[in-house]
């Protein structure tokens, strides 16, 4: 059974239709790169999958949870679906460790000792064991983003969503975040990512999806798609991206 199943999803912002019938199937352990120009609807699609955006028609099911607007059902879904944002969105008033363990303590009722152990485990996973007691504003952008990934992983999600997570980072900080994501993919995590990192999409993703004007324009295994673009638009897109 696929872990993500999207059927004929439509969404409009006022008079602007941003998703015009998206259907997508993702198998467990896949790494899906959502590609496309800004405004093509890829971020909106990603945000629909954990209920940060509502949609007008169609259906989506992620990790066995139907996506609805109903708060309690949405919380159940979000226990299994993590998301990392472009702008990190760490909690500035909490230490790195507390950022990581806030949700497990509140949602999974983790006690203090288990929470401390979890914080150490998760931060070790993103290579930031020494930053346990730092505050978010004492970290570089790349470090903040790795903490954000650790914070999401601490909920033990079954699916991870990444919304342009390296777009706000300087090139030299991008690599350290991509390394963490690559390791996560190797560990078998199901990942959907909106990205402009063509190297990552080509090298790590198992499935790439090129979106254009609210529709899936071309999709397939990245090796094939990048070597032999099936459409002029995708060829143009990768031509510009690789320049």
């Amino acid at each position, binding site marked *: 059974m696929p872990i993500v199943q999207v059927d004929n999803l439509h969404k409009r912002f006022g008079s602007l239709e941003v998703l015009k019938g998206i259907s997508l199937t993702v198998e467990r352990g896949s790494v899906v790169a959502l590609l496309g120009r800004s405004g093509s609807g890829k971020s909106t699609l990603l945000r629909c999958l954990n209920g*940060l955006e509502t949609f007008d028609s169609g259906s989506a099911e992620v990790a066995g949870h139907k996506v609805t607007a109903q708060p309690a059902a949405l919380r*159940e879904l*979000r226990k299994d679906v*993590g998301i990392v*944002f472009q702008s990190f969105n760490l909690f500035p008033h909490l230490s790195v460790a507390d950022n990581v363990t806030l*949700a497990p303590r*509140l*949602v999974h009722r983790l006690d203090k000792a288990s929470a401390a152990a979890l914080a150490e485990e998760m931060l070790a996973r993103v290579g930031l064991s020494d930053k346990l007691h730092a*505050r978010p504003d004492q970290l570089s952008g790349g470090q903040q983003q790795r903490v954000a990934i650790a914070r999401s992983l601490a909920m033990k999600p079954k699916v991870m969503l990444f919304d342009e997570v390296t777009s706000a980072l300087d090139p030299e900080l991008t690599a350290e975040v991509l390394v963490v994501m690559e390791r996560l993919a190797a560990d078998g995590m199901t990942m959907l990512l909106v990205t402009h990192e063509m190297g990552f999409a080509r090298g790590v993703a198992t499935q790439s999806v090129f979106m254009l004007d609210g529709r899936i324009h071309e999709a397939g295994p990245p090796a094939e798609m990048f070597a032999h673009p099936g459409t002029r638009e995708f060829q143009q897109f990768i031509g510009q991206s690789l320049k």
Partner: protein
Amino acid sequence: MIRDYSLAEALFLLDSAKWTILLTLLATLFGGLLGMVVALARTSTSRLLQQAATGYIATIQGIPVLILLFLSYFGLSRAGFNLPAIVAASVSLSIYASAYLGDIWRGAIQSVPIQQWEASASLALTRAQQFRTVIIPQAVRISVPPTVGFLVQLVKNTSIVSIVSVVELTRAGQLINNATFQPFPVFITVAAIYFAICFPLSWSSRYLERKFNANRPG
């Protein structure tokens, strides 16, 4: 008989300042509690609560404090509640404070970036948990300077209750002036006492602001 303005009179003024401080504290306490309810209602997801809070803030802010005072002092006694002047004064100042504090705290809550709501919602927190652990702690920092600024106003605005013969600092000044006919020494003393109450407040606000800003990324 005209009295001299002496140490005894000055001490009487100083003593009456306790009512000014008490009124401020009561209005801060009860106005603060009610203001919290107003701010939470205003930022809740319920349309009805939002509109009720908006209406409350607009109404109270549109009425002079003096009229609120007359309503609670004369109005309530006419309606059969014979409240001591100090109680009526506290009630009206609390209502006045609740609308302003509620509005200040609404603004602080709304100025916490939307991304903080999204990040915490995505971690499966309930709305109450989001408020308690993510939004309110950040809103508190934002709200310190305007809150203290309002409290300074409140200290000075307690002077209007002198009208219903609560002998707080301003009323005490009037009484001493009537007895001594020495307006300059009397009211300069009164002004100095108000200043001595307000200045530390303003100063602590600036101190806290600096302290919070120092913890912010540049």
